[in-house]
């Protein structure tokens, strides 16, 4: 456990390297993928370069390595990537998952994938409809957690998509169909609440219980859709509570790209949430106005930790350590207690190239160090 001020953490997924995608598909690596693998391994040493399997992978027998080994290497790569960038809490960059929505939904029954929907620009996600009662095939993320736990040099923080987001990113057919008549706003809202709580109870909670059984202690429940319908913030909290009921772990909630003012105080009802991991850099200005919304926690007397987004995950511009420092210190001043702050990117960095994301994370670490030094004053 870290005791220093402004500890750092990642939030979610990284872009999958080309060698992983090719390797998982059993395709031969092209020169660019080979070079990329070797270049990162020189930096991170995530696999022994003289391992015969690695030689095969980088030679003309990459197809013989197998998808499982490639996934293991990708998980190790991302783990070492975060560690080398200086982060206190790490995970595997969700190397084994197919997005944060599709993967968990595929572990459940009662869903049917319908096709791709645009999120923004040329970014899409595969969207399913809830067509039957929610059932869990088997707890998920357990194997990947055990792998991370076995290899991580520091604390592992497992991210898992929350029940509200899984429901909101799905079409709700089953629970909506149970309501008679025209499917207006109120009917939709009632059906949505049923959908969220069922996912929480039937799928997320048993998965969390299995993870905790295996030693998982720090769990980030991702609710990027948490701010989509502000009037449903109480349902987000209800889903969080249903998913974590009776479980003992350190839970945080990640919500991003939302009007946080509209979510509080309803979200405060998520009683077992120890940390709010939020996005700010995306909305920040030179005047550091993006962090002003933190005042809302003070207004409601909430004293939980804040996972402070200091890296904009949608722009290639690499934030300087000084800018990161300024953001941390501004937030620290607003909250009035620097010990409550964890430092992280706004969200997962998977939309950035691995080089850009790494440079951003390194500067995040440097910025946190600058902030620490500034608060400590002259030596």
């Amino acid at each position, binding site marked *: 456990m870290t005791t220093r001020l402004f500890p750092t953490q990642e939030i979610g997924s990284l872009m999958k390297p080309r060698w992983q995608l090719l390797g998982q598909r059993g395709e031969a690596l092209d020169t660019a993928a080979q070079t990329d693998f070797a270049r990162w391994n020189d930096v991170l040493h995530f696999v022994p370069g003289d391992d015969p399997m690695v030689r095969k992978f980088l030679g003309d027998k990459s197809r013989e390595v197998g998808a499982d080994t490639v996934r293991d290497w990708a998980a190790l790569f991302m783990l070492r990537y975060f560690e080398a960038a200086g982060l206190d809490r790490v995970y595997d960059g969700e190397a084994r998952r197919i997005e944060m929505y599709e993967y968990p939904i595929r572990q459940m029954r009662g869903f049917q994938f319908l*096709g*791709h*929907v*645009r*999120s*923004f620009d040329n970014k899409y996600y595969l969207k399913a409809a809830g067509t039957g009662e929610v059932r869990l095939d088997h707890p998920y993320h357990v194997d990947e957690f055990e792998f991370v736990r076995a290899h991580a040099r520091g604390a592992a923080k497992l991210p898992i998509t929350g029940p509200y987001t899984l429901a*909101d990113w799905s079409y709700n057919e089953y629970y909506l169909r149970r309501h008679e008549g025209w*499917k207006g706003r109120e009917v939709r809202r009632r059906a949505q609440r049923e959908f969220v709580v069922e996912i929480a109870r039937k799928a997320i909670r048993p998965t969390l219980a299995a993870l905790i059984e295996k030693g998982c202690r720090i769990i980030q429940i991702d609710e990027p859709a948490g701010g989509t319908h502000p009037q449903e913030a109480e349902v987000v909290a209800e889903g969080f509570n249903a998913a974590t009921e009776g479980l003992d772990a350190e839970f945080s909630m990640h919500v991003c790209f939302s009007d946080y003012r509209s979510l509080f105080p309803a979200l405060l009802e998520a009683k077992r949430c120890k940390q709010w991991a939020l996005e700010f850099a995306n909305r920040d200005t030179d005047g550091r106005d993006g962090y002003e919304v933190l005042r809302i926690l003070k207004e409601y007397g909430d004293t939980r930790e804040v996972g402070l987004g200091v890296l904009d995950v*949608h722009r290639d511009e690499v934030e300087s350590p000084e800018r990161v420092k300024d953001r941390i210190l501004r937030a620290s001043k607003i909250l009035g207690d620097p010990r409550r702050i964890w430092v992280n990117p706004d969200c997962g960095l998977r939309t950035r190239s691995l080089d850009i994301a790494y440079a951003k994370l390194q500067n995040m670490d440097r910025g946190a160090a600058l902030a620490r030094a500034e608060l400590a004053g002259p030596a």
Partner: protein
Amino acid sequence: MQTVTSLTGAFPRSQALVEATRDLDRGRTTAEAVQELFAQAEADVGGIEERLGLEPRAGGYLRWQDLFRPFAETWEGFTVGPLTRWFETNQFFRQPILHAPPARVPGAIGGWLPPKAPGAPHPRKAILPGPYTFAGLVDNRSGETAEALTHRLGRLLGEEVHELRAAGYSAFQFQEPLLVARPPEGARAEGVVAAYKAISAAANGGTTAVWTYFGDARPAWPLLSRLPVSVVGVDLSETDALELPPTSERRGLGLGVIDPRTSLVEDPSEVVRLARAIVERHRPISLWVGSGAPLDLLPWESATRKLHGLPAVRQGLESTDGGT
């Protein structure tokens, strides 16, 4: 009463386009190859409109990254800003940042509109951002007040309408989700009226429609009733249109009967029953029927499946209307 069924906003991208645009971002295909697929998908949308009798033709707005992007990228005064949630959806738009009073670039927006379908000419509808929603969702650093900006955008959109009218468009639909999500009051409401006066004057006999969605139209109804437009559309997933007071002025009513927030296909007979009751109450001179919010909240196949109910809805409504 004339019953019109038409697309009311952006259509989803086809699976081929999804994959191609992703590949383009990852450097795995060329812009030319993607343009070909856009053209194919636009033709496919035109085919759907043809088969289902959707007219005026709108096209799919498949190339638009969001409702404002063509304006933010081509009109003067704007830059493209941060990713921002698009109302209560899992979609995001890049918020335009306005640094100075905006100025339109003649011909720029026309080039962004879906291409005309080959073959016999059909009435065409341009779908544009409404001035209130546009003004309300930009990051306005221009120094102009919100109401002045709304009015200015109304004048500029009016110039756009004038230009498009000359290019053969007969109908102009303005997307105004913000009017019902955050209804204006006082001077801002008057700015909206002034903006639509400018648009209406420029339409030169063309049909103008204000399309609202993502919110209950009831609070904004007094203002919507005052707007000098041919049609006001409401999203029936959000609005109980039977509770809207009938307006004194006879004009068209738009009903968003398809809800793109659910993949459940609407039952045409249920839609007809509801629409008949609404028509009975409001006695509109024309009825426009389509989706409430744009269909790009659905995958291509699901959107198409839901649209297939519209001909039955149209026939059902026309049969009660003596087949007119």
